[in-house]
C-alpha cells in the first residue's frame, strides 16, 4: 500500500543573512510517521519546522505539505512552540488558551461557535485536562501547561503535529507522562518532534533524523533494537553519519 506523503522537502536551503541554517535538505514524511529530529543548538531544527509552517522561505529548493505550498496547508498543521515565557499571573484560563487554537482566518468580530467549544472540550479530554478548564494557565505545573499547549494544537483537528523542544522545561517524571500522551496521539496523527533530548527521542519516536545544517535521515532503518541499544551506549556512533561532528555529545 502506498503511504500518503505529508511533507516533502527537496534540496531546501535557508540562509539568515550570510549564515546558512539549512543546506540541501531532503525530507519525506509519510502519514502516521513519528519522526524525531535531533541535533545541536543552532543546527537548524527550529528553522526546519518554520519552513514546514511556511514562516521561513527557503532560498532554494521546494517545499510541499499535503501536496500544497506550506501557507495553504497551515490550517492542517498543529504547532507546539518551545515553552512560552509568559507571566504566572497572565489573565487567561486553560479554556482561553485552548480556544486560541480555534483562531482562524475568519477575522474581525469573530465569535467562537458551539462547534469551537465542542472541539476544545474534545482536545482537553484527549490530553486528560478537561477538569482544569477554569484554572488560570500560569498556576499549572510545567507538564500540565505543556498538555494544554498540545490541546491548543489539537483543537484545530490537524493532520500533522509539530513539536519544538516540547519537554525542554518540564521535569523527568512529567516528561515520561508527556511522551505517553504522544504515544496515544500518534495513532491518529503524523508527528514531528524536534529535541535535543536524544535518550527520550530514541525510545518514543519511530524514525530519527539528525540535523546540523545538513539533514541525515535514512527512513525507519535506525530504529532496529540493535541501534536502539547502540544509541544508549554510544550515541555518537549512531548519529554522526556526516563529516560534521555532533557537538551535543561527548566522546565516549
Amino acid at each position, binding site marked *: 500500500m502506498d503511504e500518503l506523503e505529508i511533507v516533502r522537502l527537496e534540496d531546501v536551503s535557508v540562509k539568515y543573512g550570510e549564515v546558512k541554517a539549512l543546506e540541501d535538505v531532503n525530507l519525506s514524511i509519510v502519514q502516521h510517521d513519528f519522526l524525531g529530529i535531533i541535533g545541536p543548538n543552532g543546527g537548524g531544527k527550529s528553522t526546519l519546522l*518554520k519552513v514546514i*509552517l*511556511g*514562516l521561513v522561505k527557503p532560498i532554494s529548493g521546494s517545499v510541499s505539505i499535503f501536496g500544497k505550498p506550506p*501557507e495553504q496547508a*497551515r490550517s492542517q498543521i498543529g*504547532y507546539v*512552540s*518551545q515553552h*512560552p515565557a*509568559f*507571566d504566572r*499571573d*497572565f*489573565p*487567561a*484560563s486553560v479554556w*482561553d*488558551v485552548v*480556544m*486560541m487554537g480555534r*483562531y482562524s*482566518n475568519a477575522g*474581525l*468580530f*469573530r465569535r467562537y461557535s458551539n462547534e469551537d467549544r465542542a472541539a476544545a472540550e474534545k482536545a482537553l479530554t484527549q490530553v486528560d485536562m478537561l477538569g482544569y478548564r477554569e484554572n*488560570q494557565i500560569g498556576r499549572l505545573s510545567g507538564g500540565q501547561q505543556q498538555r494544554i499547549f498540545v490541546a*491548543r494544537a489539537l483543537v484545530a483537528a490537524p493532520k500533522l503535529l509539530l513539536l519544538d523542544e516540547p519537554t525542554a522545561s518540564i521535569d523527568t517524571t512529567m516528561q515520561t507522562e508527556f511522551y505517553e500522551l504522544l504515544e496515544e496521539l500518534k495513532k491518529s496523527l503524523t508527528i514531528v518532534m524536534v529535541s535535543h533530548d536524544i535518550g527520550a527521542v530514541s525510545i518514543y519516536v519511530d524514525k530519527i533524523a539528525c540535523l546540523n545544517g545538513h539533514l541525515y535521515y535514512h527512513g525507519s532503518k535506525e530504529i532496529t533494537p540493535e541501534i536502539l541499544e547502540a544509541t544508549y551506549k554510544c550515541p555518537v556512533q549512531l548519529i554522526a553519519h556526516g563529516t560534521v561532528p555532533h557537538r551535543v555529545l561527548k566522546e565516549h
Partner: protein
Amino acid sequence: MLEALQYEFMRNALLAGLLAAVACGIVGVYVVVKKIVFISGGIAHASFGGIGLGYFLGINPVIGALFFSLTSGLAIGGITRKTRLPEDTAIGIIWAVGMALGIVFIALTPGYAPDLMSYLFGNILTVPFSDIFLMLALDAVIIGIVVALYNEYLILSFDEEYGIAIGMPIEKLYLLLLGMIALTVVVLIRVVGMILVIALLTFPATMARQFTHNMKKMMFLSVLFGFLFTVGGLWLSYVLKLPSGATIILLGGTVLAISFAVSRLRLKNNKIKQA
C-alpha cells in the same frame, strides 16, 4: 461634591474622568500584561513635542499631541522590530527627541505659553468641552478595535511566537496596539498630564489583576478602578485644594499599596493557620 456639580467645569471634569477611565482601563490591561509600561511612558513624553508644535502653529496642542504620540508609537515599534537596536534604547531616543522638539517649538513661539503646566501635569478642572468630544471619539475608536480584535490581542499578549506560527499579522497588530496606547495618552493628557500618564495606564489594570484571571473581567474592573481613582482624586483635590492630576495619581498609588499590604497579610495569616 454634590454642590460642586452645579458648576459646568465640575460636570465636564467628571465626564473627562469617566472617559479617561475607559481608555486607560482597557488599554492599561494590555500595557500591564504585555509589560510595555515604558514604551507607553516613551510615547507619552514624546507627545510633548506635539504640544509644542500646537503652540507654535497656533492650533489645539492636543491635536499636535495626537499626531506626535501616534508617530512616536510607530517609531518605537518600527525601530525595535526592524533594527537591531534594543527596545529600551529606542524608547530613550524617542522619549528625549520628542521632548526636546517640544521645548524648541515653545521657545520659537513668540510670547508666553499659557497653561503649559496643565499639559504636563494635567488639570481635570480645565478640560474644555471640545476636548471632551475628542476624548469620546478616541474612546470609541479604542473600544471598536478591542471588540473587533479581542481574540487576536489575547494571543498577541500571551504568546507572540504562537501567533506568528498560525499566521497572524503580529507586527501590524503590535503597531496598532502602540497606536491605541498613543490615543490613550491623548485621552489622558488633559486629566493627569503627559508626565503622569503611565500611572493611569498601570494602576487600574494592576488593581484589577488581583481580582480576576479573565481578561475581559480585568478590563471592566480596570475601567471601574480608573473611574474611582479619577473621581476620588478629583474630590480629594477639591477638598484639600491640591492639584488634581497629582492627587489622582497619589490616591491610586495609596490604594494600590494598601491592597498589596492586605493581600500580603492575608497570605501570612493563611500560612499561620496552616502551620
